[in-house]
Protein backbone atom coordinates (compact mmCIF):
# COMPACT_ATOMS: atom_id res chain seq x y z
CA UNK A 1 0.00 0.00 0.00
CA UNK A 2 1.42 3.41 -0.83
CA UNK A 3 0.40 7.04 -0.77
CA UNK A 4 0.68 8.64 -4.18
CA UNK A 5 -0.59 12.11 -3.56
CA UNK A 6 -1.84 14.34 -0.76
CA UNK A 7 -4.04 17.36 -1.42
CA UNK A 8 -4.74 20.02 1.20
CA UNK A 9 -7.02 23.05 1.29
CA UNK A 10 -6.88 25.48 4.20
CA UNK A 11 -5.26 22.94 6.43
CA UNK A 12 -2.98 24.49 9.11
CA UNK A 13 -0.48 26.73 7.31
CA UNK A 14 -1.32 25.36 3.84
CA UNK A 15 -3.87 27.23 1.74
CA UNK A 16 -3.53 24.96 -1.25
CA UNK A 17 -1.06 22.11 -1.44
CA UNK A 18 -0.62 19.09 -3.59
CA UNK A 19 2.34 16.83 -2.98
CA UNK A 20 3.37 13.56 -4.61
CA UNK A 21 5.34 10.91 -2.81
CA UNK A 22 7.88 8.36 -3.86
CA UNK A 23 6.65 4.78 -3.45
CA UNK A 24 9.84 4.10 -1.49
CA UNK A 25 11.12 7.05 0.49
CA UNK A 26 10.29 10.75 0.69
CA UNK A 27 12.10 13.36 2.77
CA UNK A 28 10.43 16.55 3.91
CA UNK A 29 13.08 18.96 5.08
CA UNK A 30 12.78 22.41 6.61
CA UNK A 31 13.41 24.65 9.60
CA UNK A 32 11.39 24.55 12.79
CA UNK A 33 7.83 25.70 12.45
CA UNK A 34 7.57 25.66 8.64
CA UNK A 35 4.88 22.98 8.58
CA UNK A 36 6.58 19.58 8.21
CA UNK A 37 4.59 17.83 10.91
CA UNK A 38 1.42 19.39 9.56
CA UNK A 39 1.86 17.25 6.44
CA UNK A 40 2.21 14.10 8.54
CA UNK A 41 -0.82 15.19 10.55
CA UNK A 42 -2.92 15.57 7.40
CA UNK A 43 -1.92 12.13 6.13
CA UNK A 44 -2.69 10.51 9.48
CA UNK A 45 -6.05 12.27 9.47
CA UNK A 46 -7.05 10.62 6.21
CA UNK A 47 -6.01 7.30 7.71
CA UNK A 48 -7.48 7.38 11.23
CA UNK A 49 -9.91 10.33 11.12
CA UNK A 50 -8.00 12.14 13.82
CA UNK A 51 -4.76 13.99 14.35
CA UNK A 52 -1.82 11.85 15.49
CA UNK A 53 -1.08 14.75 17.85
CA UNK A 54 -4.51 14.22 19.39
CA UNK A 55 -5.60 17.79 18.70
CA UNK A 56 -9.23 18.73 17.99
CA UNK A 57 -10.33 19.28 14.38
CA UNK A 58 -11.11 22.93 14.81
CA UNK A 59 -7.45 23.74 15.48
CA UNK A 60 -6.46 22.28 12.14
CA UNK A 61 -8.56 24.70 10.10
CA UNK A 62 -6.33 27.40 8.67
CA UNK A 63 -6.65 30.58 10.72
CA UNK A 64 -9.19 32.95 9.22
CA UNK A 65 -11.04 30.18 7.36
CA UNK A 66 -14.10 28.07 8.11
CA UNK A 67 -13.12 24.66 6.81
CA UNK A 68 -10.30 22.36 5.86
CA UNK A 69 -10.08 19.56 3.32
CA UNK A 70 -7.51 16.74 3.00
CA UNK A 71 -7.39 13.89 0.56
CA UNK A 72 -5.01 10.99 0.08
CA UNK A 73 -4.72 9.02 -3.12
CA UNK A 74 -3.60 5.52 -2.29
CA UNK A 75 -2.34 2.79 -4.53
CA UNK A 76 -3.21 -0.61 -3.17
CA UNK A 77 -4.47 -3.54 -5.23
CA UNK A 78 -6.64 -0.81 -6.70
CA UNK A 79 -6.56 2.99 -6.51
CA UNK A 80 -8.45 4.48 -3.61
CA UNK A 81 -9.29 7.97 -2.47
CA UNK A 82 -9.66 8.91 1.20
CA UNK A 83 -11.15 12.33 1.91
CA UNK A 84 -11.71 14.19 5.15
CA UNK A 85 -13.36 17.57 5.29
CA UNK A 86 -14.33 19.60 8.30
CA UNK A 87 -16.18 22.87 8.59
CA UNK A 88 -17.00 25.07 11.51
CA UNK A 89 -19.84 27.50 11.01
CA UNK A 90 -21.55 29.37 13.79
CA UNK A 91 -19.77 27.23 16.36
CA UNK A 92 -21.07 24.01 14.78
CA UNK A 93 -18.47 21.50 13.72
CA UNK A 94 -19.23 19.24 10.76
CA UNK A 95 -16.98 16.50 9.55
CA UNK A 96 -17.39 14.61 6.34
CA UNK A 97 -15.48 11.49 5.44
CA UNK A 98 -15.45 9.65 2.15
CA UNK A 99 -13.82 6.62 0.63
CA UNK A 100 -13.84 6.62 -3.17
CA UNK A 101 -16.44 9.36 -3.13
CA UNK A 102 -18.87 7.48 -0.89
CA UNK A 103 -19.69 9.04 2.43
CA UNK A 104 -18.77 6.97 5.48
CA UNK A 105 -20.93 7.00 8.59
CA UNK A 106 -19.17 4.86 11.16
CA UNK A 107 -15.51 4.76 12.13
CA UNK A 108 -15.43 1.00 11.74
CA UNK A 109 -16.07 1.41 8.02
CA UNK A 110 -13.10 3.74 7.75
CA UNK A 111 -10.52 2.69 10.29
CA UNK A 112 -7.97 0.15 9.09
CA UNK A 113 -8.54 0.77 5.37
CA UNK A 114 -5.64 3.15 4.74
CA UNK A 115 -3.01 1.75 7.08
CA UNK A 116 -0.37 4.08 8.50
CA UNK A 117 2.06 4.04 11.40
CA UNK A 118 3.50 7.31 12.71
CA UNK A 119 6.78 7.49 14.60
CA UNK A 120 6.94 10.69 16.65
CA UNK A 121 9.16 12.10 19.39
CA UNK A 122 6.35 11.87 21.93
CA UNK A 123 6.08 8.09 21.43
CA UNK A 124 8.40 7.84 24.41
CA UNK A 125 5.39 8.76 26.53
CA UNK A 126 3.94 5.34 25.74
CA UNK A 127 6.84 3.96 27.76
CA UNK A 128 7.12 6.71 30.39
CA UNK A 129 3.64 8.11 30.65
CA UNK A 130 0.25 7.32 32.13
CA UNK A 131 -1.51 3.96 31.51
CA UNK A 132 -4.06 5.87 29.43
CA UNK A 133 -1.44 6.40 26.70
CA UNK A 134 -0.58 2.70 26.63
CA UNK A 135 -4.26 1.80 26.37
CA UNK A 136 -4.67 4.24 23.51
CA UNK A 137 -1.70 2.66 21.71
CA UNK A 138 -3.05 -0.84 22.32
CA UNK A 139 -6.57 0.01 21.18
CA UNK A 140 -5.44 1.81 18.06
CA UNK A 141 -3.22 -1.06 16.92
CA UNK A 142 -5.82 -3.77 17.51
CA UNK A 143 -8.53 -1.63 15.90
CA UNK A 144 -6.50 -1.19 12.72
CA UNK A 145 -6.64 -4.92 12.16
CA UNK A 146 -9.98 -5.85 13.70
CA UNK A 147 -13.17 -3.86 13.21
CA UNK A 148 -15.15 -5.95 15.71
CA UNK A 149 -12.77 -4.73 18.37
CA UNK A 150 -13.53 -1.16 17.40
CA UNK A 151 -17.28 -1.65 17.76
CA UNK A 152 -16.77 -3.50 21.04
CA UNK A 153 -14.79 -0.53 22.32
CA UNK A 154 -17.52 1.94 21.50
CA UNK A 155 -20.14 -0.31 23.10
CA UNK A 156 -17.89 -0.68 26.13
CA UNK A 157 -17.51 3.09 26.53
CA UNK A 158 -21.26 3.57 26.54
CA UNK A 159 -21.89 0.73 28.99
CA UNK A 160 -19.17 1.99 31.33
CA UNK A 161 -20.54 5.54 31.22
CA UNK A 162 -24.04 4.23 31.90
CA UNK A 163 -22.94 2.05 34.81
CA UNK A 164 -20.95 4.92 36.33
CA UNK A 165 -23.86 7.30 35.93
CA UNK A 166 -26.11 4.82 37.68
CA UNK A 167 -23.58 4.55 40.53
CA UNK A 168 -23.51 8.34 40.84
CA UNK A 169 -27.30 8.52 40.95
CA UNK A 170 -27.21 5.82 43.60
CA UNK A 171 -24.86 7.97 45.66
CA UNK A 172 -27.26 10.89 45.41
CA UNK A 173 -30.61 9.34 46.12
CA UNK A 174 -30.20 5.72 47.18
CA UNK A 175 -33.72 4.41 46.45
CA UNK A 176 -32.99 3.05 42.98
CA UNK A 177 -33.96 -0.28 41.48
CA UNK A 178 -30.86 -2.37 42.10
CA UNK A 179 -31.82 -4.93 39.48
CA UNK A 180 -30.95 -2.24 36.95
CA UNK A 181 -27.39 -2.38 38.26
CA UNK A 182 -27.44 -6.16 37.76
CA UNK A 183 -28.23 -5.47 34.12
CA UNK A 184 -25.32 -3.05 33.75
CA UNK A 185 -23.00 -5.54 35.45
CA UNK A 186 -24.09 -8.19 33.01
CA UNK A 187 -23.60 -5.96 29.98
CA UNK A 188 -20.29 -4.70 31.32
CA UNK A 189 -19.05 -8.26 31.84
CA UNK A 190 -19.95 -9.52 28.41
CA UNK A 191 -18.36 -6.67 26.45
CA UNK A 192 -15.32 -6.53 28.79
CA UNK A 193 -14.78 -10.23 28.29
CA UNK A 194 -14.52 -9.77 24.53
CA UNK A 195 -12.10 -6.86 24.90
CA UNK A 196 -9.87 -8.63 27.41
CA UNK A 197 -9.73 -11.75 25.23
CA UNK A 198 -8.66 -9.67 22.23
CA UNK A 199 -6.03 -7.81 24.25
CA UNK A 200 -4.60 -11.05 25.70
CA UNK A 201 -4.15 -12.46 22.25
CA UNK A 202 -2.65 -9.22 21.02
CA UNK A 203 -0.01 -8.98 23.74
CA UNK A 204 1.23 -12.52 23.18
CA UNK A 205 1.84 -11.68 19.53
CA UNK A 206 3.15 -8.18 20.18
CA UNK A 207 5.69 -9.45 22.70
CA UNK A 208 7.38 -11.72 20.15
CA UNK A 209 7.51 -8.95 17.57
CA UNK A 210 8.76 -6.45 20.13
CA UNK A 211 11.62 -8.66 21.30
CA UNK A 212 12.64 -9.27 17.74
CA UNK A 213 12.86 -5.62 16.80
CA UNK A 214 14.50 -4.72 20.11
CA UNK A 215 17.31 -7.17 19.41
CA UNK A 216 17.61 -5.69 15.92
CA UNK A 217 18.21 -2.11 17.02
CA UNK A 218 19.74 -2.02 20.46
CA UNK A 219 23.06 -3.39 21.63
CA UNK A 220 21.45 -4.84 24.77
CA UNK A 221 22.07 -8.53 25.09
CA UNK A 222 18.61 -9.23 26.29
CA UNK A 223 15.27 -7.81 25.25
CA UNK A 224 12.66 -7.15 27.94
CA UNK A 225 9.16 -8.65 27.78
CA UNK A 226 5.78 -6.98 27.45
CA UNK A 227 3.25 -8.17 30.01
CA UNK A 228 -0.46 -7.50 29.83
CA UNK A 229 -1.61 -6.15 33.19
CA UNK A 230 -5.36 -6.55 33.45
CA UNK A 231 -7.35 -5.51 36.48
CA UNK A 232 -9.36 -8.72 36.16
CA UNK A 233 -7.76 -12.17 36.45
CA UNK A 234 -10.15 -13.96 34.13
CA UNK A 235 -11.94 -13.08 30.93
CA UNK A 236 -14.97 -15.24 31.78
CA UNK A 237 -18.16 -13.11 31.95
CA UNK A 238 -19.42 -14.97 35.05
CA UNK A 239 -16.17 -14.32 36.86
CA UNK A 240 -16.35 -10.63 35.96
CA UNK A 241 -19.94 -10.42 37.21
CA UNK A 242 -18.86 -11.99 40.51
CA UNK A 243 -15.97 -9.52 40.87
CA UNK A 244 -18.30 -6.61 40.13
CA UNK A 245 -20.70 -7.69 42.84
CA UNK A 246 -17.81 -8.02 45.30
CA UNK A 247 -16.78 -4.42 44.72
CA UNK A 248 -20.29 -3.06 44.31
CA UNK A 249 -20.29 -1.28 47.66
CA UNK A 250 -16.96 0.35 47.02
CA UNK A 251 -18.00 1.30 43.49
CA UNK A 252 -21.16 2.98 44.74
CA UNK A 253 -19.24 5.01 47.30
CA UNK A 254 -16.76 6.21 44.68
CA UNK A 255 -19.37 6.50 41.96
CA UNK A 256 -17.31 4.68 39.34
CA UNK A 257 -16.24 1.21 38.26
CA UNK A 258 -13.07 -0.13 39.91
CA UNK A 259 -12.21 -2.97 37.56
CA UNK A 260 -12.34 -3.53 33.84
CA UNK A 261 -10.64 -2.79 30.52
CA UNK A 262 -10.63 0.93 31.37
CA UNK A 263 -8.03 0.14 34.04
CA UNK A 264 -5.84 -2.13 31.92
CA UNK A 265 -2.17 -1.47 31.30
CA UNK A 266 0.90 -3.20 29.99
CA UNK A 267 4.25 -3.38 31.70
CA UNK A 268 7.68 -3.96 30.19
CA UNK A 269 9.99 -6.01 32.42
CA UNK A 270 13.31 -7.76 32.12
CA UNK A 271 13.96 -11.42 33.01
CA UNK A 272 14.68 -10.40 36.62
CA UNK A 273 11.15 -9.06 36.77
CA UNK A 274 12.37 -5.49 37.13
CA UNK A 275 10.27 -2.78 35.46
CA UNK A 276 11.94 -1.42 32.36
CA UNK A 277 11.19 2.19 33.38
CA UNK A 278 13.01 1.60 36.66
CA UNK A 279 16.33 0.70 35.08
CA UNK A 280 16.37 1.87 31.46
CA UNK A 281 18.21 5.01 30.39
CA UNK A 282 16.47 7.79 28.51
CA UNK A 283 18.03 6.57 25.25
CA UNK A 284 16.98 2.98 25.92
CA UNK A 285 13.42 4.09 26.56
CA UNK A 286 13.44 5.98 23.30
CA UNK A 287 14.61 2.82 21.55
CA UNK A 288 11.91 0.78 23.26
CA UNK A 289 9.27 3.22 22.02
CA UNK A 290 10.62 2.92 18.48
CA UNK A 291 10.57 -0.88 18.81
CA UNK A 292 6.94 -0.78 19.88
CA UNK A 293 6.12 1.14 16.73
CA UNK A 294 8.10 -1.25 14.57
CA UNK A 295 6.19 -4.10 16.19
CA UNK A 296 3.03 -2.25 15.23
CA UNK A 297 4.13 -2.31 11.57
CA UNK A 298 4.92 -6.02 11.85
CA UNK A 299 1.65 -6.76 13.58
CA UNK A 300 -0.37 -4.97 10.91
CA UNK A 301 1.50 -6.81 8.20
CA UNK A 302 1.02 -10.20 9.82
CA UNK A 303 -2.71 -9.63 10.36
CA UNK A 304 -3.65 -7.92 7.13
CA UNK A 305 -0.92 -8.91 4.70
CA UNK A 306 -0.48 -5.20 3.96
CA UNK A 307 2.57 -3.03 4.49
CA UNK A 308 1.46 0.14 6.24
CA UNK A 309 2.75 3.55 5.16
CA UNK A 310 5.40 4.55 7.69
CA UNK A 311 5.74 8.21 8.67
CA UNK A 312 8.67 9.31 10.77
CA UNK A 313 8.20 12.74 12.27
CA UNK A 314 11.62 14.11 13.11
CA UNK A 315 12.87 11.55 15.60
CA UNK A 316 16.36 11.47 14.14
CA UNK A 317 17.67 14.54 15.87
CA UNK A 318 17.43 12.65 19.14
CA UNK A 319 19.40 9.58 18.10
CA UNK A 320 23.16 9.11 17.86
CA UNK A 321 24.53 8.29 14.43
CA UNK A 322 24.85 4.56 15.09
CA UNK A 323 21.19 4.30 16.25
CA UNK A 324 20.18 6.37 13.26
CA UNK A 325 21.86 3.88 10.92
CA UNK A 326 20.27 0.93 12.75
CA UNK A 327 16.92 2.61 12.58
CA UNK A 328 17.09 3.15 8.80
CA UNK A 329 18.19 -0.45 8.41
CA UNK A 330 15.24 -1.68 10.42
CA UNK A 331 12.80 0.55 8.59
CA UNK A 332 14.01 -0.66 5.23
CA UNK A 333 11.42 -3.39 5.03
CA UNK A 334 9.54 -2.63 1.88
CA UNK A 335 7.06 -0.18 3.39
CA UNK A 336 6.74 3.27 1.91
CA UNK A 337 8.47 5.75 4.24
CA UNK A 338 7.88 9.46 4.68
CA UNK A 339 10.44 11.30 6.80
CA UNK A 340 10.44 14.80 8.15
CA UNK A 341 13.69 16.35 9.36
CA UNK A 342 15.39 19.66 9.97
CA UNK A 343 18.81 18.85 8.52
CA UNK A 344 19.06 17.61 5.01
CA UNK A 345 22.31 15.78 5.68
CA UNK A 346 20.32 13.27 7.70
CA UNK A 347 18.44 12.36 4.55
CA UNK A 348 20.22 9.18 3.63
CA UNK A 349 18.52 7.54 0.69
CA UNK A 350 21.25 5.03 -0.07
CA UNK A 351 19.75 1.60 -0.63
CA UNK A 352 16.49 3.02 -1.97
CA UNK A 353 15.88 3.09 -5.71
CA UNK A 354 13.42 5.92 -5.82
CA UNK A 355 13.50 8.85 -3.46
CA UNK A 356 12.02 12.32 -3.40
CA UNK A 357 13.07 15.27 -1.28
CA UNK A 358 11.01 18.36 -0.59
CA UNK A 359 12.16 21.53 1.03
CA UNK A 360 9.55 23.44 3.02
CA UNK A 361 10.07 27.13 3.67
CA UNK A 362 8.13 29.78 5.54
CA UNK A 363 4.62 30.39 4.33
CA UNK A 364 4.10 26.71 3.52
CA UNK A 365 6.04 26.79 0.23
CA UNK A 366 7.23 23.40 -1.00
CA UNK A 367 10.05 22.92 -3.48
CA UNK A 368 11.13 19.57 -4.78
CA UNK A 369 14.91 19.16 -4.70
CA UNK A 370 16.32 17.21 -7.59
Amino acid at each position, binding site marked *: MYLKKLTLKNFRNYGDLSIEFSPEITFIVGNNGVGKSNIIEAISLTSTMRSFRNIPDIEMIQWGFESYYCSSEIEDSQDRLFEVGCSCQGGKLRKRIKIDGIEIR*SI*SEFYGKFLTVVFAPFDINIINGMPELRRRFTDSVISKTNS*HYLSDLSEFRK*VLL*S*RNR*FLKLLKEKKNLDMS*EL*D*VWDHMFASVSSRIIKARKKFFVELNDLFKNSYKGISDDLEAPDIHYASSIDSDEPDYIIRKLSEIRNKDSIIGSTGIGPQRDDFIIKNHRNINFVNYASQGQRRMAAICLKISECDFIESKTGTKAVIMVDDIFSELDSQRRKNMIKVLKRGNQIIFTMVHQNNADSSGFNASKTYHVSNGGILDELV
Partner: protein
Amino acid sequence: MKNPSRYLDALTKELSRLPGIGPKSASRLAFHVLSMDGTEVERLARTLIEVKSHIFRCGVCGGISEGDICPICGDEMRERDVICVVRDPKDVLTIEATGGFHGRYHVLHGLISPLDGIGPDDLNIGSLVGRCRDGGIREIILALNPTVEGDATSLYLARLLSPGGITVTRIAHGLPVGSDLEFSDSATIARSIECRIRL
Protein backbone atom coordinates in the same frame (compact mmCIF):
# COMPACT_ATOMS: atom_id res chain seq x y z
CA MET B 1 -29.56 36.55 10.18
CA LYS B 2 -32.09 38.41 12.28
CA ASN B 3 -35.79 38.13 11.54
CA PRO B 4 -37.61 41.38 10.84
CA SER B 5 -40.34 40.58 13.36
CA ARG B 6 -40.35 39.12 16.83
CA TYR B 7 -43.48 37.08 15.96
CA LEU B 8 -41.67 35.47 13.09
CA ASP B 9 -38.72 34.98 15.37
CA ALA B 10 -40.83 33.16 17.95
CA LEU B 11 -42.40 30.87 15.34
CA THR B 12 -38.98 30.05 13.88
CA LYS B 13 -37.70 29.19 17.33
CA GLU B 14 -40.65 26.89 18.05
CA LEU B 15 -40.34 25.10 14.72
CA SER B 16 -36.61 24.56 15.09
CA ARG B 17 -37.30 22.61 18.28
CA LEU B 18 -38.96 19.90 16.20
CA PRO B 19 -36.81 16.88 15.35
CA GLY B 20 -34.99 17.05 12.03
CA ILE B 21 -35.64 20.77 11.58
CA GLY B 22 -32.59 23.01 11.62
CA PRO B 23 -32.62 26.80 11.89
CA LYS B 24 -32.65 27.19 8.11
CA SER B 25 -35.67 24.95 7.45
CA ALA B 26 -37.42 26.48 10.45
CA SER B 27 -37.03 29.92 8.97
CA ARG B 28 -38.24 28.71 5.58
CA LEU B 29 -41.33 27.11 7.19
CA ALA B 30 -42.05 30.22 9.21
CA PHE B 31 -42.02 32.39 6.10
CA HIS B 32 -44.25 29.86 4.40
CA VAL B 33 -46.79 30.06 7.23
CA LEU B 34 -46.71 33.82 6.83
CA SER B 35 -47.60 33.49 3.14
CA MET B 36 -50.51 31.06 3.77
CA ASP B 37 -54.02 32.48 3.94
CA GLY B 38 -55.80 32.90 7.26
CA THR B 39 -58.12 29.89 7.11
CA GLU B 40 -55.30 27.55 6.21
CA VAL B 41 -53.27 28.73 9.17
CA GLU B 42 -56.28 28.36 11.44
CA ARG B 43 -56.83 24.82 10.23
CA LEU B 44 -53.19 23.96 10.88
CA ALA B 45 -53.32 25.46 14.37
CA ARG B 46 -56.57 23.64 15.15
CA THR B 47 -55.19 20.25 14.07
CA LEU B 48 -52.13 20.79 16.20
CA ILE B 49 -54.27 21.40 19.25
CA GLU B 50 -56.70 18.59 18.46
CA VAL B 51 -53.95 16.04 18.11
CA LYS B 52 -52.96 16.80 21.66
CA SER B 53 -56.45 17.06 23.17
CA HIS B 54 -58.06 14.04 21.52
CA ILE B 55 -55.33 11.46 21.80
CA PHE B 56 -54.58 9.66 25.01
CA ARG B 57 -52.45 6.81 26.16
CA CYS B 58 -54.22 3.46 25.92
CA GLY B 59 -54.95 2.26 29.43
CA VAL B 60 -53.71 -1.22 28.60
CA CYS B 61 -50.69 -0.93 26.33
CA GLY B 62 -49.70 2.72 26.57
CA GLY B 63 -50.00 3.18 22.81
CA ILE B 64 -51.96 6.00 21.22
CA SER B 65 -55.72 5.88 21.52
CA GLU B 66 -58.73 8.13 21.08
CA GLY B 67 -60.55 6.45 23.94
CA ASP B 68 -59.60 4.57 27.08
CA ILE B 69 -58.44 1.59 25.09
CA CYS B 70 -56.80 1.52 21.69
CA PRO B 71 -58.28 -0.37 18.72
CA ILE B 72 -55.59 -3.03 18.90
CA CYS B 73 -56.15 -3.85 22.57
CA GLY B 74 -59.90 -3.78 21.94
CA ASP B 75 -59.68 -6.16 18.99
CA GLU B 76 -61.07 -9.51 20.13
CA MET B 77 -59.63 -11.24 17.06
CA ARG B 78 -56.02 -10.64 18.05
CA GLU B 79 -53.98 -13.20 19.93
CA ARG B 80 -54.15 -12.49 23.62
CA ASP B 81 -51.19 -14.54 24.83
CA VAL B 82 -48.38 -12.73 23.00
CA ILE B 83 -47.19 -9.21 23.74
CA CYS B 84 -44.66 -7.34 21.65
CA VAL B 85 -42.78 -4.71 23.66
CA VAL B 86 -41.68 -1.58 21.79
CA ARG B 87 -40.18 1.75 22.70
CA ASP B 88 -42.49 4.31 21.03
CA PRO B 89 -46.04 4.41 19.70
CA LYS B 90 -44.64 4.82 16.21
CA ASP B 91 -42.86 1.45 16.51
CA VAL B 92 -46.34 -0.08 16.75
CA LEU B 93 -47.13 1.38 13.34
CA THR B 94 -43.90 0.03 11.90
CA ILE B 95 -44.60 -3.51 13.07
CA GLU B 96 -48.29 -3.31 12.14
CA ALA B 97 -47.30 -2.29 8.63
CA THR B 98 -45.51 -5.61 8.20
CA GLY B 99 -48.76 -7.47 8.85
CA GLY B 100 -46.70 -10.28 10.36
CA PHE B 101 -47.64 -9.90 14.01
CA HIS B 102 -51.10 -10.74 15.37
CA GLY B 103 -50.64 -10.33 19.10
CA ARG B 104 -50.85 -7.16 21.12
CA TYR B 105 -48.36 -4.50 22.10
CA HIS B 106 -46.85 -2.76 25.05
CA VAL B 107 -45.26 0.66 24.65
CA LEU B 108 -42.49 1.58 27.10
CA HIS B 109 -42.20 5.26 26.11
CA GLY B 110 -38.41 5.19 26.29
CA LEU B 111 -35.48 2.98 27.19
CA ILE B 112 -33.37 2.61 30.31
CA SER B 113 -30.63 5.20 29.92
CA PRO B 114 -28.76 6.48 32.96
CA LEU B 115 -27.01 9.00 30.70
CA ASP B 116 -30.39 10.63 30.07
CA GLY B 117 -31.50 10.12 33.65
CA ILE B 118 -34.07 7.49 32.66
CA GLY B 119 -34.51 4.46 34.90
CA PRO B 120 -37.08 1.61 34.89
CA ASP B 121 -39.40 3.66 37.11
CA ASP B 122 -39.69 6.32 34.43
CA LEU B 123 -40.93 3.79 31.87
CA ASN B 124 -44.28 2.12 31.33
CA ILE B 125 -43.05 -1.12 32.90
CA GLY B 126 -45.29 -1.42 35.96
CA SER B 127 -48.39 -1.98 33.84
CA LEU B 128 -46.57 -4.61 31.76
CA VAL B 129 -45.80 -6.52 34.94
CA GLY B 130 -49.48 -6.14 35.83
CA ARG B 131 -50.59 -7.56 32.49
CA CYS B 132 -48.32 -10.55 32.99
CA ARG B 133 -49.51 -11.08 36.53
CA ASP B 134 -53.14 -11.08 35.39
CA GLY B 135 -52.31 -14.26 33.50
CA GLY B 136 -52.97 -15.55 30.02
CA ILE B 137 -49.61 -14.37 28.67
CA ARG B 138 -47.43 -17.06 27.11
CA GLU B 139 -44.74 -15.03 25.37
CA ILE B 140 -43.21 -11.58 25.50
CA ILE B 141 -41.36 -10.48 22.38
CA LEU B 142 -38.90 -7.66 22.94
CA ALA B 143 -38.57 -5.50 19.84
CA LEU B 144 -36.21 -2.79 21.07
CA ASN B 145 -33.36 -1.09 19.21
CA PRO B 146 -30.05 -2.95 19.05
CA THR B 147 -28.28 -0.21 21.01
CA VAL B 148 -26.70 -0.27 24.45
CA GLU B 149 -29.91 1.20 25.93
CA GLY B 150 -32.12 -1.21 24.00
CA ASP B 151 -30.06 -4.19 25.12
CA ALA B 152 -30.04 -3.05 28.74
CA THR B 153 -33.80 -2.62 28.71
CA SER B 154 -34.31 -6.04 27.09
CA LEU B 155 -32.09 -7.68 29.67
CA TYR B 156 -33.89 -5.89 32.50
CA LEU B 157 -37.31 -7.03 31.26
CA ALA B 158 -36.13 -10.59 30.63
CA ARG B 159 -34.86 -10.85 34.20
CA LEU B 160 -38.04 -9.29 35.54
CA LEU B 161 -40.52 -11.40 33.60
CA SER B 162 -38.99 -14.82 32.94
CA PRO B 163 -39.17 -16.01 36.57
CA GLY B 164 -42.97 -15.89 36.20
CA GLY B 165 -42.79 -18.73 33.67
CA ILE B 166 -43.30 -16.53 30.62
CA THR B 167 -41.11 -17.09 27.57
CA VAL B 168 -39.20 -13.90 26.82
CA THR B 169 -37.71 -13.62 23.34
CA ARG B 170 -35.94 -10.89 21.48
CA ILE B 171 -36.32 -10.14 17.80
CA ALA B 172 -33.28 -11.18 15.79
CA HIS B 173 -31.09 -8.24 14.91
CA GLY B 174 -29.20 -8.57 11.76
CA LEU B 175 -29.36 -8.33 8.07
CA PRO B 176 -32.25 -6.56 6.48
CA VAL B 177 -34.24 -8.98 4.30
CA GLY B 178 -32.91 -9.07 0.78
CA SER B 179 -29.66 -7.37 1.68
CA ASP B 180 -26.44 -8.64 0.29
CA LEU B 181 -23.88 -9.92 2.81
CA GLU B 182 -21.16 -8.14 0.91
CA PHE B 183 -22.69 -4.73 1.40
CA SER B 184 -23.53 -5.04 5.07
CA ASP B 185 -21.06 -3.71 7.60
CA SER B 186 -19.26 -6.31 9.60
CA ALA B 187 -20.80 -5.32 12.94
CA THR B 188 -24.22 -6.09 11.50
CA ILE B 189 -23.09 -9.42 10.20
CA ALA B 190 -21.41 -10.32 13.50
CA ARG B 191 -24.58 -9.33 15.27
CA SER B 192 -26.78 -11.44 13.03
CA ILE B 193 -24.57 -14.44 13.64
CA GLU B 194 -24.63 -13.88 17.36
CA CYS B 195 -28.43 -13.67 17.33
CA ARG B 196 -28.96 -16.59 14.96
CA ILE B 197 -32.12 -18.58 15.43
CA ARG B 198 -32.77 -22.26 14.99
CA LEU B 199 -34.63 -23.28 11.85
